[in-house]
């Protein structure tokens, strides 16, 4: 799996001044922070590269489709990133409805309203648990 690549690099050697090793160390720190998750100012720079969602889970979802035989690592990554963008988008769109209702808490009905109103979310109709 993609995320395991970083882990396999990590164990080789502790502190080194070799510039190539520095990258390895950064990976170790990142991984210690919890797989591909990050906080703080560094997050912005590497956010684009690493996906927040675990690629293994994304891949498992993809394999659930019987018509899918193989998927490249890149395709798994891109779907992970796209899903993150999707979550951001639907959250923001739902927020508009909460604000209409003068609420600061996003509720399920705001989601439902967004899904009904926005064309791109039409595929979700009837798919979510009531």
């Amino acid at each position, binding site marked *: 799996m993609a995320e395991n*690549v970083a882990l396999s*690099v990590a164990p080789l050697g502790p502190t080194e001044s070799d510039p190539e090793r520095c990258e390895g160390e950064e990976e170790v720190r990142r991984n210690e922070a919890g797989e591909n*998750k990050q906080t703080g100012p560094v997050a912005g720079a590497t956010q684009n590269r690493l996906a927040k969602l675990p690629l293994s889970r994304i891949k498992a979802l993809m394999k659930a489709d019987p018509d899918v035989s193989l998927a490249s*690592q890149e395709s798994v990554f891109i779907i992970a990133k796209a899903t993150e963008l*999707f979550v951001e*988008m639907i959250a923001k769109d739902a927020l508009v409805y909460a604000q209409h209702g003068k609420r600061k808490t996003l509720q399920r009905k705001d989601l439902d309203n967004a899904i009904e109103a926005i064309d791109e979310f039409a*595929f979700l109709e009837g798919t979510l648990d009531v």
Partner: protein
Amino acid sequence: MAERPEDLNLPNAVITRIIKEALPDGVNVSKEARRAISQAASVFVLYATSCANNFAMKAKRKTLNATDVMSAMEEMEFERFLQPLRESLEAYKKGQKGKKEASEQKRKDAKEKKNDVEENDKSREEEEEEEERMEEDQEAENEVEEEEVEN
């Protein structure tokens, strides 16, 4: 062993974080809304995969690739994702290349340190290292075997 799509969901903590980072401070999200978004995200993955797979099949390929996913995004009317996804993909590819080179360099260094080892041991290690290096590339092929068993 096949997992049913209904059983697979994405980690709540990560979904929550993505939502929080997308929304302004002071906004809360109810548990039900979070659950619904998480479910929606899973449905998105399934739909995007199916869409992308259609493009792969049209091109008579068995392996879904990044271009198929991009085409799927267009098809699904998520063109706004295309530019950020292209940028992420570039960064990802560079990162992967860097990792490969870094780990190859480390293997080289490790090998040089083991120059005293006997012939037999050496060739065995080389075989193991080759396998490790190829692991990423062959991962997909290994998955084929899995898939054939599953399906």
